[in-house]
């Protein structure tokens, strides 16, 4: 609430500043009076508001209450009809109860003195029942989830219940710094915000102004200062926005064409998870670095057949049309042109042969002149095969003559084809005459053809899209126009632009193995911080790795030695094209995965398996042996399909009998939850399973080790912990979120085992059966505490089998 000050105070303070300039103090007085005015106005508004609210509430209340009022009136009316004390039901009933219940153990008729006839005696004895074990609500997760920052216990005071002392205590760790509780941040109320806003519009954040403000509103000086500055910048931003709203609305869907391509892709890049292929992934978070792979898939050059024109505005279309147009206008054109000394383009009347002979020309003609003539002619074409004056053409006949191509087909490289003509010449296009054989386009032409717009200015975004199109498709204006610039530039315009700017050494090449990329014009491109264009010239060597060679990652040797697989968290590396000594994956002793930037033949990549029929369930499968699940993108015969059959499915690539993709495909067993035979709650199997069958995944929150230590303290006190060590960076905590397998208890002679598997770059915990398990049996696995970490109940008994000493649903850290 705004703290009130009297005006006298402020005038005093202004008087005391005698040393200041007159003007300044005048301003400040002005300011204080302004603030006062504003305050008064706000208060007046508030009064009005309150009045309104009271009125509204009264009406509402009236409606609700009227019903009750009428009911009660009715009742008093009714009861007054009866012959009783009228309205004093309660006291009457107290004397004449409808029934009496006596407590347990009381003899009937003991204290009946006050009762009258027809009192019913009921003695109730409740049978003792067992308590159900304590149960905490949890959230189901079908996959691990990273902990959000506000879920952390670090820095928070936690209260736990100490059963020994039967009281609630605050958990205080010695290592934790007891942070001083911050002074509460002052929240600026609406009124205060208004005052600040008004002031910030006209005044600079000088000391005096802030001082005055502190008299009127609460909060520390620094807070006010901050808020002031924020408001000021907001105001300025608002003003700017109003001015520039209509600036870049060129299209009805208002994309800003002044942005760069990477800016347009920015939110997509930020939110897309490359691993999970969705946006806003809860496992991997957002703001992942975009790593583009070394090999990308280009459009194979050989199959670029410009057989059909891509659209109405295709450059091909016009050529065909031109060709079809009969000699009439053509003759007129040629005559005009020859008269001007320009060599004409001969298009033979015979549609079969499309020989375009072009000669280098020098012209004395002005482009304008030509265009005038053209405009005068009654029949206009969109495009002419004119020879722009300033350009000299070199002809290559090799690709031009096609006898086997139909009338409209042109299979030329656009480099050699002159399509560019002047803008003026192409600006006005009148619907075609009926002599055209392109009848199917006629109606469409009438409505759609406006000719290439006068304005062929290329915005930055369009240019970048064009460059991207070159990367993807090479010099093919049809594809570029359709896929990248649809709605922005027509095929013709792209062809123009390509011609005009295409004199560089750019060659679109996609070699058959796609190792090489097009070296775009690097100067034209922005160099992003995350540059994906570090390419070597020349072909990358294809490294050969045989199955048995030493090309397998060094990790594999360790497995063969019997040691455990890597327990480090995988992070995609960005080495291009090959991982060198500084590769983080190599440092960490993790394998590179398909998400890394390195080439597919990187030495550090896991090569997957080639198992044909074995179902990948034995140590013969390299994936299985390495504690990894098979990867449908890497392993040769382990394919999975997708799609729910309503819209078909991708082409099959194999039979898909792999049994080593259980976690990926979520092929778990049904788990039931019931009171455990040994302690608390337990997990049970519904259907029988065989040895080494996959039962399910132990999911939970992914937390850091530090966080786990903190949480563990409380869990241990309660003797119930759901923490599971995953790798060097993360611990799974299933206390708040998880699935039913969190209820599986510990046993030193268990029927299941837990195994950390690497699935598509993620470590996940799978629970497997150690032996055959029948339906309805409870599940146990060894929590594998370190010797000095185990709670009492988990300590291995010396010699005797004491499974039944297990205790409440407890776990502490498991390894």
């Amino acid at each position, binding site marked *: 609430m705004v703290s009130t000050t009297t005006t006298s105070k402020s005038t005093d303070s202004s008087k005391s500043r005698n040393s200041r300039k007159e003007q300044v103090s005048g301003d400040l007085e002005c300011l204080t009076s302004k603030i006062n005015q504003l305050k008064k106005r706000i208060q007046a508004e508030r009064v009005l508001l309150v009045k309104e609210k009271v009125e509204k509430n009264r009406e509402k209340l009236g409606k609700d209450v009227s019903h009750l009022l009428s009911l009660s009136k009715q009742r008093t009316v009714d009861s007054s009809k009866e012959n009783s004390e009228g309205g004093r039901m309660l006291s009457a009933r107290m004397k004449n109860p409808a029934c009496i219940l006596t407590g347990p153990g009381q003899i009937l008729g003991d204290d009946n003195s006050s009762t009258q006839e027809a009192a019913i005696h009921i003695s109730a004895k409740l049978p003792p029942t067992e308590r159900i074990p304590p149960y905490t609500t949890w959230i189901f997760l*079908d996959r691990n989830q990273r902990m959000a920052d506000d879920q952390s216990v670090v820095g928070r005071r936690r209260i736990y219940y100490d059963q020994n002392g039967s009281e609630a205590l605050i958990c205080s760790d010695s290592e934790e710094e007891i942070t001083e509780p911050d002074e509460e941040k002052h929240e600026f109320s609406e009124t205060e915000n208004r005052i600040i806003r008004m002031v910030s519009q006209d005044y600079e954040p000088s000391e005096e102004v802030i001082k005055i403000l502190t008299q009127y509103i609460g909060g520390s000086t620094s807070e006010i200062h901050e808020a002031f500055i924020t408001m000021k910048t907001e105001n300025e931003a608002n003003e700017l926005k109003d001015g520039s709203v209509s600036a870049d609305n060129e299209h009805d869907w208002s994309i800003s064409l002044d942005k760069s391509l990477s800016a347009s892709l920015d939110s*997509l890049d930020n939110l897309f998870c490359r691993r999970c292929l969705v*946006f806003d992934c809860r496992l991997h978070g957002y703001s992942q670095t*975009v790593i*583009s792979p070394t090999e990308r898939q280009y459009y194979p050059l050989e199959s670029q057949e410009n057989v059909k024109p891509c659209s109405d505005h295709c450059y091909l279309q016009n050529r065909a049309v031109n060709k079809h147009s009969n000699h009439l206008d053509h003759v007129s054109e040629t005559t005009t042109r020859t008269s001007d000394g320009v060599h004409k383009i001969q298009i033979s009347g015979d549609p079969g042969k499309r020989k375009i002979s072009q000669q280098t020309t020098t012209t004395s003609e002005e482009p304008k002149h030509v265009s005038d003539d053209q405009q005068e002619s009654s029949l206009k074409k969109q495009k002419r095969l004119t020879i722009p004056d300033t350009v000299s053409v070199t002809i290559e006949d090799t690709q031009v003559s096609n006898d086997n191509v139909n009338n409209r087909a042109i299979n030329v490289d656009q480099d050699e084809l002159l399509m560019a003509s002047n803008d003026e010449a192409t600006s006005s296009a009148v619907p075609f005459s009926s002599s055209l054989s392109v009848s199917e386009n006629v109606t469409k032409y009438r409505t759609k053809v406006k000719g290439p717009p006068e304005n062929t200015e290329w915005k930055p975004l369009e240019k970048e899209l064009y460059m991207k199109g070159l990367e993807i498709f090479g010099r093919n204006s049809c594809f570029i126009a359709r896929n990248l610039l649809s709605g922005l530039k027509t095929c013709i315009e792209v062809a123009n632009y390509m011609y005009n700017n295409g004199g560089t050494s750019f060659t679109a090449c996609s070699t058959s193995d796609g190792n090489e990329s097009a070296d775009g014009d690097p100067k034209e491109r922005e160099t992003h911080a995350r540059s994906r264009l570090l390419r070597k010239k020349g072909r990358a060597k294809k490294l050969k790795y045989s199955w048995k060679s030493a090309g397998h990652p060094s990790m594999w040797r360790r497995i063969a030695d019997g040691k455990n697989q890597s327990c480090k968290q995988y992070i995609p590396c960005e080495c291009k094209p090959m991982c060198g000594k500084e590769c983080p994956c190599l440092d960490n002793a993790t394998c590179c995965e398909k998400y890394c930037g390195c080439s597919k033949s990187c030495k550090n990549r896991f090569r997957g398996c080639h198992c044909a029929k074995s179902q990948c369930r034995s140590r013969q499968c390299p994936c299985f042996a390495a504690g990894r699940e098979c990867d449908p*993108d890497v392993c040769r015969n382990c394919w999975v399909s*997708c799609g729910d059959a309503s819209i078909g499915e*991708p*082409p099959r690539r194999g039979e898909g009998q792999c049994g080593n993709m259980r976690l990926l495909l979520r092929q778990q067993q049904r788990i039931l939850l019931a009171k455990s035979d040994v302690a608390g709650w337990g997990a049970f199997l519904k259907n029988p399973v065989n040895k080494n069958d996959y039962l399910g995944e132990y999911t939970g929150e992914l937390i850091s080790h530090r966080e786990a230590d903190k949480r563990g303290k409380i869990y241990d006190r309660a003797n119930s912990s759901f923490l599971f060590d995953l790798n060097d960076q993360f611990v799974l905590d299933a206390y708040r979120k998880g699935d039913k397998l969190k209820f599986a208890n510990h046993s030193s002679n268990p029927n299941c085992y837990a195994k950390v598997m690497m699935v598509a770059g993620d470590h996940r915990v799978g629970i497997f059966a150690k032996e055959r398990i029948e339906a309805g049996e409870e599940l146990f696995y060894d929590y594998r505490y370190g010797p000095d970490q185990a709670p009492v109940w988990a300590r291995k008994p010396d010699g005797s089998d004491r499974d039944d000493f297990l205790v409440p649903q407890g776990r502490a850290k498991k390894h």
Partner: protein
Amino acid sequence: MAMEQVLAERDSEDEVDDDVADLEDRRMLDDFVDVSKDEKQMMHLWNSFVRKQRVLADGHIPWACEAFSRLHGPDLVQAPSVLWCWKLFMIKLWNHGLLDARMLNSCNVILEECRSQRQNQEIDHMNIDRIKLGGVGLEGARMGELVRFLI
């Protein structure tokens, strides 16, 4: 739970309710302030699609883009801004090496077809209106039949 329920085959455990999942997805996306509405819409459509179709592997993506374009094409061409986001996303997928250029082109061809279909529809509607206005005087339904027959 009753014993019969327990023993029954029907399994509601970790059954993902599509509507709830969609709602949650939208809510999660709405939390972002610097993402435009159209981008959010496109992201939501994609997320929903991936979840329902269980797109898991990199090798699924080309098929997924094509199926998505077919499935949502008619709606996308009616919302050019969302369509633009989808096209940008496909370019992004190419950047990642998940989508090949051929499939990218095919998807755009599909979208073009959707667009021309829609335009044809509009022309049809316009023509129908014109005939109506022309005062032939037939009833609406019969008009429709007549027009269909003519066109």
